[in-house]
C-alpha cells in the first residue's frame, strides 16, 4: 500500500492515511435487544492507517458496536465488513485480523512480561520462532530488559499500558481497538501512549479508539459521536468544531450529548 494518493484535505494529525483502502465498512447496522435499539442504523467507513475516535456518553451504544466490530456479537441487520471479512459469517477471521486492548482487561497480572508476550503471541497463532524474535524486539524497544521477568502486577501502570498496546499489535493486525486505553494514567505517560498510537497508524495499522478525554479526541483523524444509539456526528475534529462554532471537542461533545442525558 503506498500513500501517494494523499491530498491535503485528508492529511490530519498523523499526516499519512489515505482513503484508498477501507478496512471497516458499516452500512445500516442495527442491533436490538428485545424492544431496545442499542445501535440504530449506523453507517460509516474507516480507512487504513486512520486514527478513528469513537465517542459517546455512557449508555450511548459504543460497547455494543465495538463488540460487533470485533466479531464478538452479531448485528440484528445491516451490512458489515471488517478487515475484508463479513461480519456475520467470518467472525473468527475477523478476530485474527484485529487487536484489542482496554483499560480493564489487557495483561495477566500473575504472568511476567515475557510470559504475557508469549501467551498472546500463541493466541494469535504466531510461530515459536516468530514469538521469540518479536519478544526480543519489543523488550528492546520498550526498554524492558531489566523487568522482563517481573510480574505484570509489580510494574507501574504506565508501563503496563504501553506493553498492553504493544502486545495488542504483536501480530501486526489491520485494526486495533482501544477501549479507553489511557484512563487513570499520568499526563506524561498518556502522551507517550499517543506517540505509540501515531507510530502504529504511520505503519498502516488502523486505530479505533474510545476515550473520555476530550483533548484526545482532537488527536484523531476523524471522530464520531454516538447519541442514543445513533451516530449524531462524524467529521474531522476541525470540521466538527466549525460545524458547532466552538473551539474544543469538549464543547462539541457537550452540545451534542447534553440534551439527551438529561432525560435519561
Amino acid at each position, binding site marked *: 500500500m503506498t500513500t501517494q494518493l494523499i491530498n*491535503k484535505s485528508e*492529511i490530519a*494529525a*498523523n*499526516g*499519512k492515511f489515505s482513503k484508498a483502502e477501507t478496512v471497516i465498512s458499516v452500512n445500516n447496522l442495527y442491533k436490538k435487544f428485545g424492544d431496545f435499539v442499542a445501535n440504530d442504523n449506523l453507517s460509516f467507513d474507516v480507512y487504513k492507517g486512520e486514527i478513528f475516535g469513537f465517542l*459517546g*456518553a*455512557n*449508555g450511548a451504544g459504543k460497547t455494543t458496536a465495538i463488540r460487533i466490530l470485533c466479531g464478538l456479537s452479531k448485528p440484528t441487520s445491516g451490512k458489515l465488513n471488517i478487515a475484508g471479512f463479513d461480519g456475520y459469517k467470518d467472525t473468527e477471521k475477523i478476530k485474527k485480523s484485529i487487536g484489542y486492548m482496554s483499560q480493564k482487561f489487557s495483561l495477566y497480572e500473575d504472568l511476567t512480561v515475557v510470559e504475557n508476550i508469549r501467551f498472546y503471541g500463541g493466541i494469535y497463532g504466531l510461530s515459536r520462532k516468530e514469538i521469540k524474535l518479536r519478544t526480543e524486539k519489543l523488550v528492546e524497544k520498550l526498554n524492558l530488559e531489566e523487568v522482563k521477568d517481573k510480574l505484570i502486577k509489580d510494574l*507501574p*501502570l504506565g508501563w503496563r499500558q504501553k506493553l498492553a498496546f504493544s502486545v495488542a499489535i504483536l501480530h501486526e493486525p489491520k485494526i486495533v481497538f482501544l477501549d*479507553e486505553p489511557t*484512563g*487513570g*494514567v*499520568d*499526563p*506524561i*505517560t498518556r*502522551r507517550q501512549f*499517543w*506517540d505509540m498510537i*501515531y507510530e502504529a497508524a*504511520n505503519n498502516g495499522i488502523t486505530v479505533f479508539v474510545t476515550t*473520555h*478525554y*476530550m*483533548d484526545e*479526541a*482532537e*488527536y484523531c483523524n476523524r471522530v464520531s459521536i454516538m447519541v442514543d444509539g445513533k451516530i449524531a456526528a462524524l467529521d474531522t*475534529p*476541525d470540521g466538527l468544531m466549525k460545524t458547532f462554532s466552538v473551539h*474544543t*471537542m*469538549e464543547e462539541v*461533545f*457537550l452540545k451534542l*450529548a*447534553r440534551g439527551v*442525558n438529561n432525560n*435519561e
Partner: protein
Amino acid sequence: MNSTKENSISVSNLSKSYGNILALNKLSFEIAKGELFGFIGPDGAGKTTLFRILTTLLLADEGNATLCGLDVVKDFKKIRQIIGYMPGKFSLYQDLSVEENLSFFATIFGTTIQENYELIKDIYIQIEPFRKRPAGKLSGGMKQKLALCCAMIHKPEILVLDEPTTGVDAVSRKEFWEMLRKLKENGITIIVSTPYMDEASLCDRVALMQGGIIMSTNTPENIIKQFDTPLYAVKSHSMYQLMNDLKTWNQTESAHLFGQYLHLTIKDKDSNAIETYLKSKSHQDFEIQQITPNIEDAFMRLMANKSK
C-alpha cells in the same frame, strides 16, 4: 458534632507502605471547613490510600490525621458518624432498589430519608422516577447520583468522594461537579479525588499528587501563576512532523501535545527562535502563540522538575 475548629481536616507527616512500595510519603495539609478540596493525580499517586486512612478504614504507618478535631485512630467510631464516604468502586446493594438503598443507609445512621430530604432533594429528584428499579440496573450516571445521595443521607460534616467521575462521560462529569458546587453551599466540607486534570479548576484548592507525595497545594489560579516560564502553543500542517522536530530540537525544554496544539517551553527565552527553527524545518502555515498554562501543563512541569 462540635466543629469549632477552623480546620475540618488536619494531616501531618502521614506515611503508608505496602511491602516495599511507599504509597504515601510524609503528607501534610490542612483543609478548612466548607472547602471543596481536590486531590488530583494519576492511578498509583496514593489518593485512595489517603482517603481510606481519613475514613478510618486503614491505619497509617506514621503521622497523624484529625477530622473535625477527632483522631482517625482513637476516635474512629465518632468519625464514622460525621463523614459520608463514596468509594471508587460502586458499593451499593445491586439487588436493592434505589429507594431501599437510600432507606438502608438512612437507618444505619439512625435517621430517615424525610429528616434530611432537603439536602439530597436536588439530586434525588433526578433518580426518583426509577426509585423501584434495582440499583444494579441503573446507568452509570444514575448510579453515581444514588451513591452520592446515600453518602449524604445522614447529613455528614465531611464528604469524602474517591474518584466519583472516573470512567464517566464528559456530560455526566460536568453535571456531577455542578451538584458538588451546590452541596458546598450547605457548608459541607468536600474532599474529592480525580485523575482528570481539568476538574482541578472546579475546586477551591487542590493538591497535585504523584507517586505518594503532594507536589503542590494551592488554589488552581495560584498553581497556574507558579508556572515559571513562558508557554507557547504551536500548530503546523503536520503535527506528527512538528512533534518529532520539536522533540529533537536542542532548545526544547518540554513539548507536549494538547489537542490540536503542541505546548512548548524553551531554554532560550527568545520566542523568535521557534519561528526560525520551524522555517528551517520547512514547516508551512504554522502558528505560534504564547498562552496561559492550564493545570495539566503545571502538573507535567512539576513532574519533570521532581525527576530532575
